[in-house]
């Protein structure tokens, strides 16, 4: 089946970006917002049609085959090695198309209300379109270089949107931090791409993941520090993924990125861009699995550690967006772990499928959480928990949808998070009981900090608000996206996901692992129970006592275990002082000095000889005569 119309999914947001970016200020804010949202609604419909057509295609020998409706050569190096631009439709890219367009559409609609009256409304919608275009281009890339191009494009749109309030110094600093940290990680990514393409002679995902071992024949026997060169290449690519997906220790940019507008956090820093790393690992999964299984173990360990770290930090944060940011980091850790512990064939590939499933459900409920948080921040004009409390009466719709999202992320049936998280835990237990135990503990922590957040916002002691500024429910164009996302979070768990997406393309039928499911639900309920006892009334003295008792730990966790301070120390005290300063001195005094010296001497010389250019012909004739005489004398007597 031809699916050339898929190219419109990419082009329409790009056209919107150009339109709103170039002449957006000619439109009123409302028109610009409606253009952006309307185009995105069309794009979302196209994505659904694409998904429908793709998944209704017959399987070939039980496998879903990728479709490439469009591919053209962009840069030609050799007959084997060329950079293409194209569209690759396979189960995960189609799944991502649906996720991105859905969340993006919700965010577009929500922003109509949330950003109302903001300066630069048109610019905001232009950037949202740019981001949507880049993200869609990233997921449908046919080759790793195209992925890299769009990878940088989402990075730059994230930078632009974090720094949307460019008059706020924190926002500017946060956008710079996000850009520099991810750019730094992308250096690893680029080296990885170059290594991989040098040894395999191709950028194409289809060639790389075909399972054809001859692709890697040239790399056989090439090792570096005990690892095969392909393992190094994919490990470097994973560094890029870790930067984008905020894996420890490159996670530092994500909490700061919350300085951007809240819908942007929902779209970019919760649902779509930050899972690009997970997506890329999934995209190259056969390469990891067959060529570098040791890197997969590393991915699992990094994912588990990040997940644990972020969950602990999330338990003590007081800014609601930061809690959600750390929760996002923790959940992405879950996805990475699931990929790391996954196998390839049949039931072995449970982790892969669970990771993609969790990516899907997480995008929905985390976007819902962020949009709900946006509605709350909109109502109380603060991010701090202490200015909230008791909001369940004033904001009933937000309260209900937020509760659904909290239940989903905590893994309570029948909400979507339960199913995906349960499969991740099952995959972890199959990998090793230790991994399963740790991830179950993190799942309990997740339930605890989410309900701590929930009770602090909606129950506890109502904060005192100035008269005339009482919180009120958000307008309809903000609550409707919340309701839609909540509905998706309720039913998404029942999608037979293994039927659509699996590691080997075969249909994978999953069934609930009784023991794992019961245990995880029980511990989630216990964690929620603890949170209820501690935070529901808001008067329980135990949390304060605990904070006092474990003061050092509490303070360290509140300051995110001083990772940012460590980076600050390394960059400012060591790199800036001992590397950058001397280099800057060398540049300014030696290199610039040499050139300035040349210019200076040329200038002095010209001053010295400019008297010769007198304009007096007779003087020239005199010199000319003298010269002639000297030549004559030389010719005759020398």
């Amino acid at each position, binding site marked *: 089946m031809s699916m050339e119309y898929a190219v419109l999914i990419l082009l329409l947001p790009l056209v919107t970006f150009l339109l709103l970016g170039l002449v957006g200020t000619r439109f009123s804010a409302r028109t610009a917002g409606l253009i952006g949202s309307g185009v995105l609604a069309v794009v979302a419909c196209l994505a659904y049609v694409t998904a429908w057509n793709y998944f209704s295609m017959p399987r070939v020998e039980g496998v879903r085959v990728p479709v490439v409706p469009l591919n053209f050569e962009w840069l030609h190096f050799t007959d084997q090695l060329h950079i293409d631009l194209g569209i690759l439709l396979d189960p995960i890219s189609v799944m991502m198309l649906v996720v991105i367009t859905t969340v993006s559409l919700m965010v577009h609609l929500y922003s109509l209300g949330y950003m109302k009256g903001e300066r630069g409304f048109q610019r905001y919608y232009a950037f949202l379109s740019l981001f949507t275009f880049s993200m869609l281009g990233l997921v449908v890339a046919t080759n790793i270089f195209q992925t890299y191009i769009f990878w940088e494009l989402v990075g730059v749109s994230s930078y632009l949107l974090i720094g949307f309030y460019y008059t706020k110094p924190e926002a500017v600093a946060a956008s710079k931090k996000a850009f520099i940290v991810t750019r730094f990680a992308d250096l690893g990514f680029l080296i990885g791409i170059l290594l991989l393409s040098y040894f395999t002679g191709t950028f194409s995902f289809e060639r790389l993941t075909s399972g054809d071992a001859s692709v890697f024949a040239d790399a056989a026997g090439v090792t570096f520090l005990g690892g095969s060169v392909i393992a190094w290449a994919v490990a470097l690519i994973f560094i890029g993924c870790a930067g984008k997906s905020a894996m420890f220790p490159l996670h530092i940019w994500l909490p700061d990125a919350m300085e951007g507008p809240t819908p942007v956090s929902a779209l970019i820093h919760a649902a779509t861009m930050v899972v690009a790393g997970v997506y890329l690992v999934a995209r190259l999964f056969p390469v990891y699995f067959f060529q570098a299984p040791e890197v997969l173990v590393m991915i699992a360990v990094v994912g588990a550690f990040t997940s644990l770290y972020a969950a602990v930090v999330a338990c003590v944060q007081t800014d609601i967006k930061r809690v959600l940011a750390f929760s996002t980091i923790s959940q992405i850790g879950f996805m990475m772990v699931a990929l790391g512990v996954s196998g390839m064939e049949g039931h072995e590939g449970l982790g892969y499928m669970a990771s993609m499933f969790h990516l899907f459900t997480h995008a929905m409920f985390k976007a819902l959480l962020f949009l709900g948080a946006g509605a709350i921040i909109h109502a109380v004009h603060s991010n701090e928990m202490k200015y909230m409390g008791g909001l369940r009466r004033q904001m009933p719709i937000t309260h209900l949808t937020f509760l659904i999202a909290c239940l989903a992320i905590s893994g309570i049936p029948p909400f979507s998070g339960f199913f995906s998280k349960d499969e991740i835990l099952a995959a972890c237990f199959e990998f090793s009981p230790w991994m399963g135990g740790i991830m179950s503990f993190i799942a309990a922590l997740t339930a605890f900090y989410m309900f701590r957040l929930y009770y602090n916002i909606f129950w506890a002691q109502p904060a005192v608000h100035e008269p005339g500024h009482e919180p009120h429910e958000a307008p309809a164009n903000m609550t409707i996206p919340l309701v839609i996302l909540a509905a998706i979070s309720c039913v998404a768990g029942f999608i037979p996901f293994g039927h659509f997406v699996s590691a080997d393309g075969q249909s994978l039928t999953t069934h609930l692992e009784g023991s794992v499911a019961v245990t995880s639900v029980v511990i989630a309920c216990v964690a929620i129970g603890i949170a209820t006892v501690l935070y529901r009334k808001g008067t329980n003295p135990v949390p304060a006592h605990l904070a006092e008792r474990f003061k050092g730990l509490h303070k360290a966790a509140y300051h995110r275990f001083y990772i940012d301070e460590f980076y600050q120390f390394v960059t400012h005290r060591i790199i800036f002082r001992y590397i950058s300063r001397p280099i800057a001195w060398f540049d300014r005094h030696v290199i610039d000095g040499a050139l300035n010296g040349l210019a200076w001497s040329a200038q002095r010389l010209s001053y010295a000889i400019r008297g010769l250019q007198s*304009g*007096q*012909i*007779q003087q020239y*004739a*005199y010199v000319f*005569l003298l010269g002639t005489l000297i030549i004559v004398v030389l010719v005759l007597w020398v």
Partner: protein
Amino acid sequence: MEIRLEYYLIISTIMLFAGIYGFITRRNLLAVLISVELMLNSVDINFAAFNRYLFPDAMEGFFFALFAIGVSAAETAVAIAITINIYRNIRNIQVHHLDTMKH
């Protein structure tokens, strides 16, 4: 007494250097012009003398001298015209005052 080729050459050399000296030292534009004429005429003498003494059967030297005289007459006419125009403009034909173009 026989008049030899060298005599002509001595005369023309003296004229040439007198012309060069005048060209370099005179301040009046007309005097500079006369010096240039002196140099040209010294060359004409050389042409005629060489033709007469070394190649008595040929006529090229005489013709070349005639051409040079014609060209120098035209050049003098132009130069005189320029000089008159300069005088009309700045009421002066001293060479070291003609520095308007320099600034």
